[in-house]
Each structure stands twice: as C-alpha cells, then as structure tokens.
C-alpha cells in the first residue's frame, strides 16, 4: 500500500473514531445528573440571549434532532459560548492550542534527542558504571511525579534562587511596552518557557533513553554490524552511522504510543506553571463548571492526538522503508 493510500485510510479511521467520541460525549451529557441545558447555556445570560442560544443549539428540540444539531454545530464550529469568558469557545481554544504546541513539541523533540544520545552511550558501555548510572537515573526521572517536580522547580529556581518567573508565559510590562521589539518578546517567552520545558524534559528523556538503549543492544547483534566490523570500520563510525540511526526508530514509535500519556503530563505542567495552553484551559474550565469550554478543549486535544499518531506513523514509514502497513 502506498503512503498516500495509507494516509487516506487512516484519515477515514480518524474521522470515524472522532465521530464516536462526539457521540459518546453527547450521550454522557444527557445521562449526567441535572439539566443539560444549564450545562451548555450560561445561567447568567439574559433570557433573550439564552433563548437565542438554545434555539441555535437546538436544545428545545427532541433528542435525536438535538443530536443532528449537535453534529451540525460541531462541523460549523459552533461549540457554544464559554461561561467564564463570555466568548465563543472556538475563538478561545485556537490561541491556547498554539501555546501548547510550542511548549510541547519543543519538550518532546529535545527529550527525544537527549534520550537517543544518552541511550547510545549507555548501550555502548553496557554493564559498566556509565551504563548503570544512566539507566538508573533514567528510571528515577521516568517515575518522578510531574506536578511535584514542577512545584519543586518553582520553589527552588523561581523562589529560592530567583531569576525565573514564577508562572505565566509573558511579562505584562514587556508586552505592554510598544518599544520592545520582536526579539525581546521572543526572549521573554523563552525565559518563561525554561522551567516548564525542564520539567517535561526531565520526565520524558528517561523513557526515551531506556528504549534507545535496549533497541541499540538489539541492533548491535545484527549481521550488518558484524559486516561493518569485518570491513574494518572504526567503532565510532559503526556506532554513529550504522547502529544508531536504525536503533532510533523505536523511539519514534514510542513518541507516538506515549503521546496520550505525555498530553496529560503537558496539561499538568501547564496548570502548575499557568502556561496558557489547552490543557490548562481544560483543567480550568472543569473547575469552573464551564462545560462548553471543557468539551471543546477535550475534543481539540483528541483531534491533535489522533493526527499526531498519524504523523508519527507516516514519519516512521518514511524513515524505515521496510515498514508498510
């Protein structure tokens, strides 16, 4: 099967899965205790506004027509109005998604690179002290409780030592000042990003290291490594050019497989650091009983996870031409 056909098939699958998720959410909302209308329409709205919204969302119709309205509104992008912000939720979530992607992709890429690099070293020194320490620290980092690490980082680096902002993504005084240029603003965001990034990095690189290490050990047993040795290549070339690129492939799979796990971790990191991302918005809206916003955040995260899995699979096919689904 060609890559294009594969992508097409997977997109259809994603659409089906997404449709199921939408339906389950609809059913759950109707099953939940209390009046579903009060969950979707802000109780503080004026009666006329509320009535208009109820009609727009079809909440005064029989249940199967409501379901039709629900699907139609979803595909038209009408996900309701956030109670907290008083704005349509779609306009809120896009900017949040962007912030999440900046933080999250940077963290995943950096930790995967570090994991591959250190895993390579660990496997090369298998059984020696370097290996023991790397493996052990990877195990410990991998099981650290993420929100706690985030709190400790804030306590140590932002409070005790200082020099890092406590929370947030931007400093108001820099962004409000019209004289500050693009680079200053970028630097400001980067400065705010260091601690959340460090938290996510610490939690993730361990598992990548462990996978890289065991995959590298498998690869080193392959015949082509023996061939490379027989050809008289130096150990360094064998390690970096022959073994490592092949051994790194399972790390990519694991990035895809652990994505759901990492997204939860991302939400926790965003919440502790008040990083205005989609995960924090979800936590925030659930605390505020802002159901329309919570639902929109959840659906957006689901789309992102499903599509990223596809991207990972395609990337894998591209990197390893032997793999065809």
């Amino acid at each position, binding site marked *: 099967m060609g890559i294009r056909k594969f992508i097409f098939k997977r997109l259809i699958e994603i659409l089906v899965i997404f449709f199921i998720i939408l339906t389950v959410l609809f059913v759950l909302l109707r099953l939940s205790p209390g009046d579903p209308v009060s969950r979707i329409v802000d109780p503080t709205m004026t009666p006329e506004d509320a009535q208009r919204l109820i009609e727009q969302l079809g909440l005064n119709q029989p249940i199967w027509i409501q379901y039709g309205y629900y699907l139609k509104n979803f595909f038209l992008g009408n996900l309701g109005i956030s109670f907290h912000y008083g704005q349509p939720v779609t306009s809120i979530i896009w900017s949040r998604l962007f912030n999440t992607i900046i933080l999250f992709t940077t963290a995943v890429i950096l930790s995967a690179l570090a994991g591959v690099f250190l895993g390579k070293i660990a496997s090369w020194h298998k059984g020696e002290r370097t290996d023991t320490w790397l493996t052990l620290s990877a195990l410990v980092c991998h099981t650290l409780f993420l929100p706690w690490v985030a709190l400790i980082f804030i*306590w140590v680096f932002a409070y005790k030592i200082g020099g890092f902002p406590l929370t947030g993504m931007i400093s108001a005084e820099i962004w409000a000042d019209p004289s500050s240029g693009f680079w200053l603003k970028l630097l400001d965001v980067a400065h705010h990003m260091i601690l959340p990034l460090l938290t996510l990095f610490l939690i993730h690189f361990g598992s990548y290291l462990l996978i890289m290490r065991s995959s590298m050990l498998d690869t080193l047993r392959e015949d082509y490594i023996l061939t490379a040795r027989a050809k008289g290549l130096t150990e360094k070339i064998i390690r970096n050019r022959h073994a490592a690129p092949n051994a790194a492939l399972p790390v990519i799979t694991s990035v895809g497989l652990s994505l759901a796990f990492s997204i939860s971790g991302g*939400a926790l990191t965003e919440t502790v650091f008040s990083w205005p991302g989609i995960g924090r918005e979800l936590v925030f809206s659930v605390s505020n009983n802002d159901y329309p916003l*919570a639902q929109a955040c959840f659906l957006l995260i689901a789309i992102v996870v499903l599509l990223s899995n596809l991207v990972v699979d395609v990337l894998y096919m591209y990197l390893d031409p032997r793999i065809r689904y």
Partner: protein
Amino acid sequence: MKEPDRKNIFTPGSIFSDRLLENWSIFKENLLGKIGLTLLIIFAFMAVASFFTPLIDPMYNPMTGVDPNISYSTGPSFHHWLGTDFIGRDILSQLLAGARIAFMVGISAAFMSIVLGTFIGMVAGYAGKSTDALLMRLADMIMVMPTLLVVLILSSLFGQLNIWIIVLLIALFRWPGVSRVIRSQTLSLKQRPFIEAAKVAGASPLRIIFRHILPNVLPLSLLYMTFRVTSAIIIEAALSFLGFGDPGTVSWGMMLQWVWKTGNMFQAPYWLIPPGICISLLTLAFYMLGRAMEEVIDPRLRKEVEGE
C-alpha cells in the same frame, strides 16, 4: 509487530508454581528487583501503620484530626514529626494514610484492567476474524485517549467522583496495552499442538481459553499488572492534585493540592517535599519490580512496555 520467540519460556504443561519458585531464584539476583521489593515493603508498613495512628490520639486522624493548639501550618515538632497542614492536621499521619490509598487505588485498578485486558486479549486472539478486528479497533481507540483528561471531562459532567469510580475508570481506560500483548501471545499459542488436541477432544472455546491458554499467558499478565499499578497511582495522584479527587480520602496527590492551593508551598518544605517523594518512590518501586520480573519472564519483551 515482530513475534518474539518464547518457545523455551512457555513450555506447555509446566506447572505454574514450580516455575514461580524457579523464577524466584533468578529474581533474587536482580538488583532492581531487590530495591523495588524493599521499597514496597517499607510502603506496606506505612500503609499498615496508618490504621494505628488515629488510635494513639484522635488528633492523628488524617482527615478530621486537628491539633487543638494549632490552626495553621507549623514545622516539625515533637508531637508532629513532619509538621501540620493549614488547619493543624498532622502531616505524617496524612502521609501514612496516603500510602494506604495509593496501594488500594494502584492494586485494585491494575487488577481490574489486567483481568479485562487479559480476557479481551485471549478472546480476540483465539476467536480471530471480525471479533478480533472489532476488539482491537476498540483497543486502539481507547489507547489514544489521555486517561487523565477523560476522567477530568467526566468529572465536569458528573461532579466529584467517588474513589471507586475513579479506580473503575482507570481500569476501563488502561486495558488496551495489556490486551494487545496477550492477544499476540494467544495467536502464537493457538498454533501449538496441545490446543489442537484439546479442540479434537471436544473442549469448548471457553474451556480452551481458560484451561489451556490462560495458564500460559498469566505470567505476562502479572508482569503487566506491576506497570499498571504505576500508571494507576500516577493518574489518581494527578487527579487529586488538580482538585478532582475524592474529597473523602487523603491521598498524596491531595496533600500536594493542599500545599499548593493554600499558598503554603514556599514556606512549608516539610509539607511540600514528603508526598512527592512518596509518590515518586512508590511508582519507582513498582516499575523496578516490573522490570526485574520482565527480565525473569522474557528479556526481549521490553520494547512493548515502554511509554505506557
């Protein structure tokens, strides 16, 4: 997925307890396993001790016991070895109670997800065809859902969730990984002569699954259980940390939520540090135990477990 060769490990007919005894001697030599087991025993003692602290003095009740002389967070003292929280409750007794909750949540959620995952995996693998396709599609779908966020959206619909509902939800969302491994194991077992023999002898599919396949996949299920305990503890702790835990329980995540939300975190390291260390160490202990068991059962399984 590559089908690992496990011929020499799962010899049909060998008795489970014999193998356990034999494996124990390999396990004993494993450093990770020893560290993990030691840590687990320490935490188990903490969990048991939590039953006795309220008996010493009612103020050591983790939830309701308040020191009559203290109404704010104080540092370690003679009566409160780890200090008190924002309303004068003893932190050490909360920490002990947290161990109990963590074990309860971790083991029961892991057990349920393993039972579900093993059963579904065996059925999918043995039945094949459309049953298999349907079950595995379902597994794929659940696998991509971030469990923590699913539980969050459910608690936005149904309000505060009871601890057992949380356990059940974790179990319901954590079985797919297990069922995939059990399925591929079942697929290879299905080709063995002893299954063929059972079929010829007239055994029903259910009998074959439970009497002939189950004993052979059980070690693998047990291995997965240790990893599931880890993820269940983390999910519950994270949920409590965000303020969506069961308000009737004192878990380590809840303690962190209190120290964070009451604004004590910069002033009260004696309160901030212990719960986090406990969560991290307990999950580490189960994880190490899992890795050690993995090396005993099959060193080549490792890749399928990472990232869960």
